[in-house]
Structure formats: C-alpha cells, structure tokens
C-alpha cells in the first residue's frame, strides 16, 4: 500500500533508438508489479505473434496505431507507477523523430532525467545531446544508466570508462546531481532488484535511487511569487464582500500578515487570509492552489503577480531568452508572437538572434540566423509591457515562457529566461 505522505516524482527518459528505453520502462513497470494481467496477456500474445522469445517488455509502451505498425514512438506518452514510497510519472519521449522538441517537453516538468547509454557504444553524440537538454531545462537530478551490461560481460572496467567519458564533458554543464547505474533492462539487473552479476557494484538500484532521492528542495522556497489566475467574487449573500485572488503559488511561502506588492501596479497591501475550500491556513507554499485576500481594496486581475514587498522579481521589457524552436514553420525575422508567461499574456517580437547552439558540440554559432524546428538558440525578445520574471536558473516557473504564433495559434517555441 502507498503511504499517505508519499510524494510524486516526475522523470523523463532519454535514449537513442536502440538503447533499450522501452525495455527499461517495461522492466520498471513489470518488476514493480504495475502491470495488469490483461495487459500482460495482450503483450504475450503480440510477442508470440512477432516471434520474440519470452515477453517483449518494450511492447508495454506501444501506443497509437501508427506507432505499433511502424515500431516507432511519435509523441510524448505519460506512464504511471506507484511503490509504497512514491508515485512516479514517467514522460516517455521518443528517440528520434522531433527528438529535441519531445525531450524538451518531457524535461520541462521533470525532477529527474534518466539518460541511457549502451554499454557497448559508450558515450555517443546523442548522449551529449541528452545531457545538454537536461542541463538547459535545469532538471535537478540526472541518472545515467549504463544499459546492456549483460552484453559486455558485466564488466566493471567498461562501466568506469563510460563514467569517465561522461564526466569529461558533463563538468561543462549545469547539472548538480549526476549518478551512474550499471544495469541490464532486459534481464532486470539493478533496475528494481540488485544484480547478482555485478558484485563489484555497491551502489543503489535504479528504483531505490528514484524512491529515495531528495526532491523537496527542487522547488524554490525562497522567492514568494503568486501569479493571479482569476478573481473569485461570489455573488451569494454569505460571501458578499469576498474578493479572492485565485492561483497556484509558483515559488516560495506566503503567510497571513505578509507585506505584499502587486505587480505591475506596484501597489502594496497585507495578506488578510489564504483560503482553500477546506481551511484558511496561516501559510501556504508552492505548488499549492489557493486564493488570497488582501486588507486593501486594490484593482488586481489575471496576469498580475503578488510578491512579498522585500523580495521582488525582475520587471523588464527586454529579455534574453534561451529558446527551443518547436514548430515545423521556421521563425520569421521580426515576426510578432504571443508570449505566455505564468498567467500573463503579451505580444512580443524576436529582436535579435544572439547565437545558435550546436547541441552536439555545445559550440555557439553567431553567424547562422535561421531558426528551424529543434534549434536551440539565444535570442533577444522585446515585449509590449514589462514582464515580471526571475531567471530560469533560479525559478523554473517564473523563468519559463512559450511563444504562440498569432496566425496559426500553434505553440512554436519554449523559452527559458536568462
């Protein structure tokens, strides 16, 4: 049974086409007993029909008709499993098609990234790319799984050499917590159960790592930020004078009696109450959804941000942004886009491309000014009104934004404010 105080851990899985990513997810689900009998029977039948020996665990992650027919994954799929310690949400991102776009999507909400490396091939270009994206999206924890250890005789030397290869370039990245696990997803070694084939390895299994890593401090608890989603004004007798600002705390902690400033107006007040349906707690923290009332009657609407007076975000119109272009339509020079940032929406223009990043070599290219799908680049953006933000490095919620094409309504880019 799941414990009442267990937390959610969201992780994303990255691997190139034949790294065994689907097998690993299948193994985690299977060995943690998260697969139902009817699912297992269906997979057994398909495995037999396809002539596989035993049960092909990779089939658990098959989704749409086209994916099954073509044996590929098209889009991010979300999978779930629970152990007595935690609930897990896996963002299962495809290995090849629109790779960057999908991994960035999966990484945006992840506490942890699993990067798969094939023990036979070691660190390859794709591994560097995955590590770069994990770093760019500021995923707090990275677990490098050296998979297919069974195909290299469970060799400690091979594992150590891959660890060294990885560390040689990961020191340039901004990931604080990197761990390495030697595994065989196919046979189950060190995934859920300890490997008997690798007595030299004394570290934790993958599941044990996921169950126990410390994630509470992944969210910013310092900078109190409350983007207002909507205003609650009940028309009933009982609550005639109620005016609550509804939203989800983006970061930090708010307390009754806090001196607050409302941005962009700059008006100040004091928190009168923090309310939920069940209670009016004296304090509330990210990521709680609450409604806040203030002592003074000031004009506040969606898109405004309530912050503590002694700790304000930046408020500017000129932004430096790391952008990942997500759409097949290339960016048009000087084109206008809609920016969505917290609950705020504004018009914006890409003023300049500072450089493009080669995600294989991490090199910056200042000459190439075309923006196409899967490109990662640094740009200068100007908004019509000042935006209230923090840098993405310190705050993944108030530092992130998306660009929407005004002509097609499509989400075309994801941005992280520098």
């Amino acid at each position, binding site marked *: 049974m799941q414990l009442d105080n267990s937390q959610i851990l969201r992780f994303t899985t990255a691997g190139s086409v034949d790294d065994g990513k689907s097998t690993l997810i299948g193994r985690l689900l299977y060995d943690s007993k998260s697969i139902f*009998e009817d699912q297992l029977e269906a997979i057994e039948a398909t495995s037999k029909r396809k002539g596989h020996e035993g049960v092909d665990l990779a089939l658990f992650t098959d989704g749409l008709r086209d994916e099954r027919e073509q044996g590929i994954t098209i*889009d991010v799929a979300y999978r779930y499993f*629970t152990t007595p310690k935690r609930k897990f949400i896996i963002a299962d991102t495809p290995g090849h098609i629109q790779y960057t776009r999908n991994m960035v999507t999966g990484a*945006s909400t992840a506490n942890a990234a699993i990067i798969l490396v094939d023990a036979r091939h070691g660190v390859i270009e794709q591994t560097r790319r995955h590590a770069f994206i994990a770093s760019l999206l500021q995923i707090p924890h990275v677990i490098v799984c050296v998979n297919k250890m069974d195909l290299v005789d469970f060799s400690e030397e091979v594992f150590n050499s891959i660890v060294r290869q990885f560390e040689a370039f990961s020191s340039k990245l901004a990931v604080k917590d990197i761990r390495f696990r030697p595994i065989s997803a196919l046979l189950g070694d060190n995934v859920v159960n300890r490997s008997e084939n690798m007595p030299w390895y004394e570290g934790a299994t993958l599941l044990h790592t996921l169950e126990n890593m410390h994630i509470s401090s992944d969210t910013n608890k310092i900078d109190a930020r409350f983007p207002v989603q*909507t205003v*609650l*004004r009940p028309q009933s007798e009982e609550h005639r004078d109620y005016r609550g600002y509804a*939203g989800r705390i983006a970061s930090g902690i708010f307390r009754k009696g806090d001196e607050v400033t409302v941005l962009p107006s700059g008006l100040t007040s004091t928190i009168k109450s923090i309310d939920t349906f*069940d209670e009016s707690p004296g304090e509330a923290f990210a990521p709680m959804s609450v409604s806040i009332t203030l002592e003074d009657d000031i004009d506040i609407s969606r898109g405004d941000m309530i912050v503590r007076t002694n700790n304000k975000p930046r408020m500017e119109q000129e932004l430096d942004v790391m952008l990942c272009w997500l759409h097949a339509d290339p960016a048009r020079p000087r084109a206008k886009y809609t920016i969505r940032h917290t609950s705020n929406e504004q018009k914006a223009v890409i003023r300049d491309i500072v450089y493009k990043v080669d995600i294989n070599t991490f090199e910056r290219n200042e000459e190439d000014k075309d923006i196409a799908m899967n490109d990662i680049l640094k740009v200068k953006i100007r908004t019509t009104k000042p935006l209230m933000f923090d840098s993405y490095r310190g705050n993944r919620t108030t530092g992130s934004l998306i660009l929407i094409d005004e002509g097609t309504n499509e*989400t075309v880019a994801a941005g992280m404010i520098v």
Partner: protein
Amino acid sequence: MLEKELELSETARNGYYLNYLDELESEAIYVLREVWAQFQNPVILFSGGKDSIVVTHLARKAFYPSRIPFALMHVDTGHNFPETMEFRDRLIDELGVRLIVGSVQESINNGRVAEERGKNATRNALQITTLLDAIEEHRIDCAIGGGRRDEEKARAKERFFSHRDDFGQWDPKNQRPELWNLFNGKHYEGEHFRAFPISNWTEMDVWNYIKREGINIPSLYFAHQREVVWRNNSWIPNSEFLKLEEHEEIVSKRIRFRTLGDITITGGIESEADTVEKIADEVSAMRQTERGNRSDDKRSETAMEDRKRQGYF
C-alpha cells in the same frame, strides 16, 4: 565515491512539500481555473461515473466560495442505469449548476445517426455525433473531461489542453507541445478544446481521493445483488435492452461495477466490497485493468484511439 546519496527522510529535512494527493488536487484545480480564464463557454462532461464526479468535486473546490461556473453536460444514450440518472439529478440540485443534456435518442429520431444492428449493437459510438452536435449547438469552446492517461494507450498521449478541429477531431500525431504548466487554449471559431484536469491520476489515486474527501458516488460502485448474465468475461446486467442468446441464462449475483458506462456494455465484477475503504483495498489488489470489463474497448486493439480521433470523450 561517485556521488553523495542523500537519503534523509523528506519530512525531517523539510516540511514544505505536498503529498501525492494534495499535489494532484492542486494541479487539477490549477487546470480548472486555467480553463475558466482562457475560454468563454466551458462545460464539464458529466457521465455519472466516478471520474467526472471527482472533476466536479475539484471544480467546487477550485472556485469556492463562488459556485462552479460551468454547466454540466450529460450525453444521454437512453441506455443509462436508473441509479446514475438519480445521482445526476441530485448532484445538480445540490450544486445549483445548469445541466445540458445531449440526447442520443433525439439524434436517432432526427436521422443524425442510425442505431447499430446485430447482437453486440450498442449506442456507444453514436454518442460522438450527439456530443459534437451539443458542443456546436451550445457554442461550447471547452469540454472538461475526466479522462486519465493511465486508462488506455491512446489516452497516454493526451494533453491537459487538447485541441479539436472544426469537425471535432483529435489529431494525435500533430498535437501542440505542452511545456511546464503553460497551456495554450487559443483556437478559431468552430474549433474547441477538451481539458483533462485529472490526466495524471491513476484509478488508485481516484479511489484514495474519494475515500479521503468522502465524496458521494452512485450505489452501483458498491457490492449489491443484481440479475446478470455472463458475457465477454464479465457480468452484464439484465435490462430492457438485453437480448439473451440461446445458451445464456440470467442469474442473481453479488456484484459491483468498476467503471460506469451504458447499462448494455458495462460489466460487473463479483465483489463483497460495500464501502469505499473496501473498494480501495480491492482495487489495490486488482490484477485486471479497469476497462477490461468494458466491451466498447474490446472491439479492436485501437478501439479507443479510433473513437477519440472522431471526437469521443
């Protein structure tokens, strides 16, 4: 040493975290408020099943002390369990919200759809037309559903905000990427969105939440004595719509329903679980998926994907 393993208990280090149910609740409330802010005329698709009941409960919390600002929309196939209808009407009264009904019988009478024929005929697929007609008629720009990604493989690919074109169709290969918690509900006239606030919940999460919150659910979920017939590996309830096959026989069993759909397609399981606590225990020990008793999903391997593409819930 390759790394420092931090394994202190979370509580000892830092009291400021939410448990999984609180985090799921907070996320769902955020999604519901986002729907309200981004759309003109959203509704909750209400089937009378536990998932849409939970979504309705969450909507009540999201806008408190205001009333739920959405109407509830029910697609009435005419093949309902009477218990579901009574439950629906009581809930509507209690919440003081508006009810919109789309009637499959009317769609048949108007010639919009034709009744299926044959022994396994159901009105399941016919609902799609009725649903899309009702969305158009009432100018609904967002229909909030209780769909969960753990339910079915096509649903695993759903977004929180899921775009539907002006034919109501879902294009799973061409969805808008959804990053962080930034939802893009922009659309043209005639298009609409489906929103799924409990995307990240599993069946177990739903039951644990119902238990914790003390949410009322229809009596059909609890073990009760009922006349049933064994068909497609589950106990199909006797009703005026049931046509017995030659070898089939009606028996009385103590059963309960794990999901609720039409009376013609929803199979029951033998059970003694007559409280939410017992149901939660039973579900946690369950070795079959929830939709395993739904003959609508068994028609083909991609039955759900095919219906979803056309505009199904």
